[in-house]
C-alpha cells in the first residue's frame, strides 16, 4: 500500500481507492443479480409479471371441421384418418415449423396399461408432422416421478430415438414463472423451455379415468407442464384444470381412445382396467374433444365433469361437442 502523505492521500492513492470501491460495488451488484431468483414469486411482497404463452391456435376455418372422430384398430391408420378428416396435417403444420408435442407421461407404466401416451400414437403423430414439413419435433413432459424412467418405460424414449425427435427432460433452469388470470392459476412455475423455439403445439393424451377429477384427457394433459409442488392443486382440481384452456391455446389436440383406462386411474395397473374403444378424437377445442371422450369413450355422464362445464362457462371451449363442426370417419 502506498504511503499516505502527511498532507492527505496522493492522487494515485485516491484514484486507486475509488476504483477499488467502485469495483466492489459493481461486484456486489453483479453477485446480487446472479443470486436473485427471478422465478421466485413472493405473493404480496413483489409485483412481478411472469410469462404468458402465445396462442398456438390457428384462425377458425368455418369450411373445415374443428373436431374429427375416427374409428379404427391401429394407431397410425386411425390418427391419419382423424387428421385427414380435419383437412390434413398440412392445415396445422407448415414447412419449417418447430412442433412441440406434449404427451402424458406422468407415470412409469408400460404402454399396455393405458396410463400414458401410447408410443404408437406418438410415432403416428410425429410421422404426420414430419410429412407436413416440420423441421423439428420436441417432445416434453414434466412427470413428478423420474422423467427418464417414465419416458423409458412408457416406450416413448424408443420412439423419440427411432423418429429423431428431441426429447426434453425437465431441469430447474427450464422453468419460468407463468402469469395467468385463472381461477386458481395466477403465478406458477412452468416448464417453458420446450416452448421457446416451438411455433406449433400439439397435445397428445390418453383417455383415462382419474381418481380425483374423474377423467384425464387433453385438457388435464397440460397439468404436466406445471412445476413446483403442484399436488397442492389437487384440492381444487376442477378449478385448475378449467384454467388450462386459458393457459394453453394449442394448435391441435389428439385424444387417444384406442385403449381407454376405464378404472383405477390415473395409474391403472391391470389390463382389466383397460377397454378397447378403437377411437381417436382430434380437434382444436380441447373442451369439445374431452366432452366426447368422457361420454363416448369413458362412457360416463358429462354432468359430473365439473371442469369442462367451468371452462364452457368461461368461454374457453364448448362442452356440447355436437354444437361444433365435427366429422366422424372410419379408418
Amino acid at each position, binding site marked *: 500500500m502506498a504511503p499516505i502523505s502527511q*498532507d*492527505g492521500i496522493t492522487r494515485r492513492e485516491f484514484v486507486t481507492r475509488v476504483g477499488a470501491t467502485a469495483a466492489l460495488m459493481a461486484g456486489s451488484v453483479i453477485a446480487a443479480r446472479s443470486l436473485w431468483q427471478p422465478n421466485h414469486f413472493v405473493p404480496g411482497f413483489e409485483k412481478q409479471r411472469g410469462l404468458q404463452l402465445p396462442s398456438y391456435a390457428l384462425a377458425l376455418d368455418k369450411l373445415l371441421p374443428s373436431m374429427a372422430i375416427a374409428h379404427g384398430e391401429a394407431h397410425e391408420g386411425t390418427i391419419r384418418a382423424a387428421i385427414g378428416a380435419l383437412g390434413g396435417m398440412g392445415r396445422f403444420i407448415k414447412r419449417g415449423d418447430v412442433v412441440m408435442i406434449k404427451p402424458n407421461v406422468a*407415470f412409469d*407404466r408400460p404402454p399396455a396399461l393405458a396410463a400414458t401416451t401410447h408410443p404408437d400414437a406418438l410415432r403416428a403423430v410425429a410421422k404426420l408432422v414430419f410429412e407436413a414439413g416440420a423441421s423439428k419435433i420436441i417432445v416434453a413432459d414434466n412427470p413428478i416421478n423420474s422423467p427418464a424412467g417414465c419416458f423409458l*418405460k412408457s416406450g416413448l424414449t424408443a420412439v423419440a430415438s427411432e423418429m429423431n425427435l428431441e426429447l426434453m427432460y425437465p431441469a430447474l433452469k427450464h422453468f419460468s414463472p407463468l402469469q395467468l388470470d385463472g381461477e386458481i392459476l395466477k403465478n406458477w412455475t412452468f416448464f417453458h423451455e420446450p416452448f421457446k423455439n416451438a411455433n406449433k403445439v400439439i397435445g397428445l393424451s390418453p383417455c383415462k379415468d382419474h381418481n380425483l*377429477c374423474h377423467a384425464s384427457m387433453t385438457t388435464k394433459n397440460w397439468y404436466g407442464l406445471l412445476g413446483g409442488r403442484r399436488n397442492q392443486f389437487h384440492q381444487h382440481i376442477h378449478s385448475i384444470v378449467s384454467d388450462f384452456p386459458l393457459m394453453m391455446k394449442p394448435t391441435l389436440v389428439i385424444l387417444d381412445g384406442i385403449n381407454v383406462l376405464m378404472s383405477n386411474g390415473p395409474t391403472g*395397473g*391391470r*389390463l382389466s382396467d383397460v377397454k378397447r374403444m378403437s377411437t381417436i378424437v382430434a380437434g382444436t377445442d380441447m373442451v369439445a374433444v374431452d366432452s366426447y371422450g368422457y361420454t363416448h369413450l369413458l362412457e360416463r355422464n358429462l354432468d359430473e365433469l365439473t371442469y369442462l362445464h367451468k371452462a364452457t362457462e368461461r368461454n374457453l371451449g364448448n362442452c356440447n361437442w355436437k354444437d361444433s363442426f365435427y366429422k366422424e370417419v372410419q379408418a
Partner: protein
Amino acid sequence: MALLQKNKPPGGNRHSFVRTPIPVSENLICVVLLVIIAAIGVAIFLKGRHFDPDRFNVKVSSLNSTSSSVVGKSQTIAATTEIESDSTKDSTKSQTTPPRPMPTESPAASTETGGATDGEGGVEGVGARSTPMVKGEPLEIVLEGMKPMSPTEFYNADNLYEKIDGRSPAYQNFHVQALRCRTFAVTSLPGSFVDVYEYTFDSAVDAFGMFSLERDPKGKPTDFIADGYYGDMGWFFRRGLVYVQIIASDQNLQTITLAEALARNRARELPENDHGLEGRLMLPTKGLIPQSVSFIPDNAQGQAELRDVFVAAYSFDGERIPFFIMAAKPDEASRAWKLFHDFCMRFGKVEDLPDVKGSKIFSAQLFGKSKVVYVRGGELGGVFDVSDVNKGQAFIEHYLRGENK
C-alpha cells in the same frame, strides 16, 4: 498537535482530513472477514436453492443397528457386504435374498418368519427374529433371469404423489404408511421388465381395504395366498400390512413367469399379520364367489355399530347371496344386533326366527329389500338384499349349523 498545526486549513473554515496509515494486520482481518461473509453467502445460496422436503424427516435408517438382533460383529459385516455385492452382481442362480420383513404389530407374526434368512443385516438360523423394515432398505430379490433395473424407491404418505400422483389420495384414505418399489429387468428380453410395488399400511385391515378397493372382479385367485389374484399382466395380493402389486411390462411368457416368481417370493417373504381381519377369517368358504370379498370400515348396513365388516357373495341353491360378518366382543355384538333389530322394526317389518344352536335370528323387509341377521357370541352377520328371503334364511341356518363352512 504539531500535526494539526502543520495541516492548518489554507483559509476560511476548510478542514483538512487526515487519514492515518492502516496497519497490514487490520487489512488482513478485513479481507478474512469479507471472505467469510462471501463464503456464508455462497453456502446459503447453494443450500437454499432447492427445498428438500425430507430435510427434517427422521432418518430412521440410523436405527438400523438397533432394530436387528445383535448376534455378533461378523454377522453385521457379512450382511453389509452382501448388500453391496447383491445390488451390483448379475443374478445367475436361483437364490432368494429375502428382504427385511415389514413392520409387524403382533408378536406372533414376528416370530412366524423367524427362520428366514435375511440378507440385509438380519440374522439367520435358529432363534432369528424378524426385524422391522425401516425406510431405506432396498428391495433385494435375486431370481434367475432378472436383475434390478433401477434402485429401490421409497415414498411415505406425504410424498406418495411423487410416484402415483392423483392416485395417492385413495391410498391415504386407507392410511398408507410407505411405498417401496423397484423395477427388475428381464435379462433375456430387452425392454421387458417387472415392477414390484409394496404399499405398507398402518394395519392389515387398511391394507385389505385398499386391496379390495382396487380388486379386479375378473382376476383369478392365486394358489399361494388367500387375499390375492392375478390378471393378464400382474399379481396383486395382501400379505400382512402390505398390499403388493407385481406388474409385468408385457404378456411375454418369460416376463409373466418372472412376475409370478416375484409374486411368490414376496408372498413368502413378507410377514403374515391378520390382526383385525378376524371377520375375514370367519367367512365361510363353501360357495364363496372368488374376488367378491370386500371390507366396510364403518356404518355397514347403515348402522353405526356395524364396524370392520366383511362382505362376500355366495352361490347358494342357484342364488347369489350377499353375506356380511363382523367380529366383536360378545356384548358389543349382542347390542349391535339388538339395535339393528330395533332399526328394522322402526322402518320395516321384522320377524323373529327360531334360534339355531343358540344363535338369535331375525328376518326383515326393509325398503323393499330382505335381510336375515343373526348373532352368536362375538359374531354378528347376515344376508342382505336377497330376492328370496327363504333362501337367505336357509343359507344362514345352514351356516349356523356348520353345514357350509
